[in-house]
């Protein structure tokens, strides 16, 4: 047995509030992985750190704002997207990202999500989808797969989940992709692409939630769900959008890839005169 080289600092410590490490997320939680991808993409973007702003909502994913060492706003449940809209429209030079979860974005924040996509506001939304409301202990949410267990669906979830890619595509988003926390390189690439791409970008990243979702669904450790992703994911970006629903029952594929990449004009407020 050989110990790895023991050190005190990580190369990305400049991007995170290292004085607050270790963070609050459970062992095996995927949110930290997605946050790391986001931090890496920020560095690779070449956009001044000063101009990057992250806005989050409420939930475990919402805590990302508190750990990122950039201007960050941890707002009310579901209202991250309109807050970010205000930031971006008041100062178009900012590179505004929203980092939030499936519950915050698609349930209470659902209305804002679809309208921002409709308007094609120039922001990047990173959705860490762990299939439940993790922070409050693992209740079912709008993306909980049919039949999956949770603390409020002990007999199996009786609802069909949102197919977020389909939803956002229909709403008018310029860029929609879906990956998982095992597709780390693709997530970094897509976040980077989204920063530079005008219009509304939405990147769904499936992530393990071992203590919330996992414990109720035989995925007790983060690695279990990561291996499930590896086994079930199929990279097929030309899959028809209505077939992209997620079903975690045996032998059902999970489709990943860049599904929508279009060039509709980003939202512009009407301007008849120079700014005063």
């Amino acid at each position, binding site marked *: *047995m*050989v*110990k*790895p*080289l*023991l*050190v*005190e*600092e*990580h*190369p*990305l*410590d400049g991007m*995170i509030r290292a004085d607050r*490490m*270790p*963070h609050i*997320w*459970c*062992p*095996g*939680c*995927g*949110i*930290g*992985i997605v*946050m*790391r*991808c986001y931090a*890496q993409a920020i560095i690779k973007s070449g956009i001044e750190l000063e101009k990057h702003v992250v806005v989050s909502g409420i939930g475990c994913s919402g805590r990302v704002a508190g750990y990122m060492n950039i201007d960050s706003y941890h707002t009310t449940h579901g209202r991250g997207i309109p807050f970010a809209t205000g930031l971006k429209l008041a100062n178009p030079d900012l590179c505004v990202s929203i980092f939030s979860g499936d519950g915050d974005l698609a349930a209470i924040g659902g209305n804002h999500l679809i309208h921002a996509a409709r308007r094609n506001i120039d922001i990047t939304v990173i959705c860490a989808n762990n299939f439940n409301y993790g922070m409050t202990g693992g209740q079912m949410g709008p993306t909980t797969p049919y039949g999956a267990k949770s603390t409020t669906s002990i007999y199996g979830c009786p609802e069909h989940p949102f197919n977020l890619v389909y939803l956002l595509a229909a709403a008018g988003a310029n860029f929609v992709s879906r990956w998982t*926390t*095992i597709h*780390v*390189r693709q997530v*970094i690439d897509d976040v980077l692409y989204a920063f530079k791409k005008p219009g509304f970008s939405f990147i769904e990243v499936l992530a393990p939630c071992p203590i919330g979702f996992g414990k109720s669904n035989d995925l007790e*450790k*983060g*690695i279990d769900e*990561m*291996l499930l992703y590896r086994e079930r994911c199929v990279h097929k970006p030309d899959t028809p959008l209505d077939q992209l629903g997620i079903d975690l029952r045996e032998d059902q594929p999970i489709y990943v890839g860049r599904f929508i990449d279009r060039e509709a004009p980003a939202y512009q407020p009407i301007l008849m005169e120079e700014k005063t």
Partner: protein
Amino acid sequence: MKVFARTPVNLGEFNIPRGRVHLILERCKGCNLCIELCPQQVLQVSDMTNEKGYHYPEIRLDREDSCVNCEFCTMVCPEFAIYTLEVEE
């Protein structure tokens, strides 16, 4: 199933990178993602724990030189606890 493949004749011309694993002990939460997902099986679970009681990764005795700096552990660690740096030859 053993796969038979030819060895490329110019294999010797390629410089396979080598990496060195670095660990911030107190950040590790023992999730084992790095250990299980390392394509070179460089890591194993340590019998020892950090202050919080988590078993952190250590390098397998016979795999010390197998790290190729693919950086997958770096990218997949949720805790900003492990990373590799290329070893200059």
